[in-house]
């Protein structure tokens, strides 16, 4: 069985990392922040009604798969993407493709990936990794958030690919069939920025974008009554984890997006974007302060009304800054 040479680079976020690594394999060099920016990955959403293990969901990024789709569309990359009804079919198809020397992106559940530290292994089904070969019955894996390549046994991989729950990966695998040797980033950058601004400012629902941050702030203010101290610390803990755990680049993707703006500024020779990147860095620091304060509340396991109020104020400040930031970004002249 042939093993294609695959160049692995560790990245912060799995989806933008897989894009960067996969396209790089075909000679289209795109950095992780660039992929994240062109895919308009930055977002915010708080969904109190969508509970995972009894804790409301919070996200700092767009839904899984969206970054991928957008980057491919904007850069003219053609992808083949398949889902399968049974693990047998899914593994067979995978073997066929890697035998042809094609590295394959896979959607999988973190829970069944033995190479992750046990402390990170929750049922999270939207992780992305690349399988680039098979050796002595083991699959060769380039997981973008790991610092080196690793291996996985077929059984674990099948379990990870066919995990149940939401979103169920159904063995989803994808690989490029046509990658342009070079692409102009100018238009994709512009479209990516405009789309990100739209999602942050214009979605007419209170749970999303900048208004989503205000919505969360309002709920945090009342955490002492609803859901009460014990649960509130779990809720806060989840917000922190979504913001700071692997794959966020720090501060809920804000630094990652700022890195994108900086790269875009150089590429398009637009000093304006570089200034905005500096502003977003400061907003990222606001988020980190929030996480720090929330972490203290979690540690003491309870908080008086004042600290919930303080946390709420901090969130409102984040919201106000992001509001101003994305308005400026949306007014950049192209």
């Amino acid at each position: 069985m042939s093993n294609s040479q695959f160049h692995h680079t560790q990245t912060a976020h799995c989806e933008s990392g897989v894009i960067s690594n996969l396209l790089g394999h075909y000679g289209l060099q795109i950095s992780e922040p660039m992929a994240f920016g062109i895919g308009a990955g930055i977002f915010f959403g708080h969904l109190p009604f969508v509970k995972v293990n009894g804790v409301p969901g919070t996200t700092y990024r767009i839904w899984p798969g969206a970054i991928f789709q957008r980057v491919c569309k904007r850069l003219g990359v053609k992808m083949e993407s398949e889902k399968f009804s049974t693990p047998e079919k899914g593994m067979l198809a995978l073997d066929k493709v890697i035998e042809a020397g094609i590295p394959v992106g896979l959607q999988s559940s973190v829970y069944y990936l033995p190479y992750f530290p046990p402390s990170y292994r929750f049922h999270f089904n939207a992780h992305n990794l690349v399988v680039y070969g098979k050796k002595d019955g083991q699959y060769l894996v380039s997981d973008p958030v790991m610092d080196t390549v690793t291996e996985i046994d077929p059984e674990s991989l099948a379990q990870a690919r066919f995990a149940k729950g939401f979103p169920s990966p159904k063995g989803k695998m994808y690989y490029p069939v046509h990658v342009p040797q070079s692409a102009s980033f100018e238009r994709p950058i512009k479209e990516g920025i405009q789309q990100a601004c739209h999602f942050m400012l214009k979605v007419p629902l209170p749970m999303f974008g900048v208004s989503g941050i205000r919505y969360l702030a309002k709920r945090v203010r009342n955490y002492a009554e609803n859901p009460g101290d014990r649960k509130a610390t779990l809720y806060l803990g989840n917000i922190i984890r979504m913001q700071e755990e692997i794959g966020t680049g720090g501060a809920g993707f804000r630094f990652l997006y700022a890195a994108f703006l900086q790269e875009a500024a150089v590429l398009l020779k637009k000093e304006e974007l570089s200034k905005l990147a500096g502003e977003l860095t400061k907003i990222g620091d606001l988020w980190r302060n929030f996480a720090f304060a929330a972490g203290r509340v979690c540690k003491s396991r309870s908080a008086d009304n004042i600290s919930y109020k303080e946390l709420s104020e901090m969130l409102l400040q984040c919201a106000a800054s992001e509001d101003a930031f994305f308005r400026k970004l949306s007014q950049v002249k192209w």
Partner: protein
Amino acid sequence: MKKEEVPQDDDNLHEGTFKQIMYAVDNSGNYVQVQSAGWEPENIALGQAWEEVNEKVKAARASVDAGEISPVAYYMEKNLMDLPLLASYVGKFQWQIKRHMKPGVFKRLSPGMLQRYADAFKISVADLK
């Protein structure tokens, strides 16, 4: 966040064996990738999530030993699952799973059904009982 401010709090659950990438600015204000061993607030949040899991597992274990619920409930917690997730793994409705959590009903489950639970939990049927 400056490069020097990237947190290196490695007193976490994975003992600093796993380093993640963060984006931070260097002295001239340019973004660079920096490895981070972990950050205190995240460590607290992660530790707390596991504590919650362990408490639930312990409580379920106690109830099983007291004969109040069946091992299905214990293994569900142990595998970090909730009702909807377990239901989709064994291909049953949630109310059926709840029923199977009654010790009396559990005792009468068919070998096939037990096997499905054992598969979902990655254990043997003997362990399940």
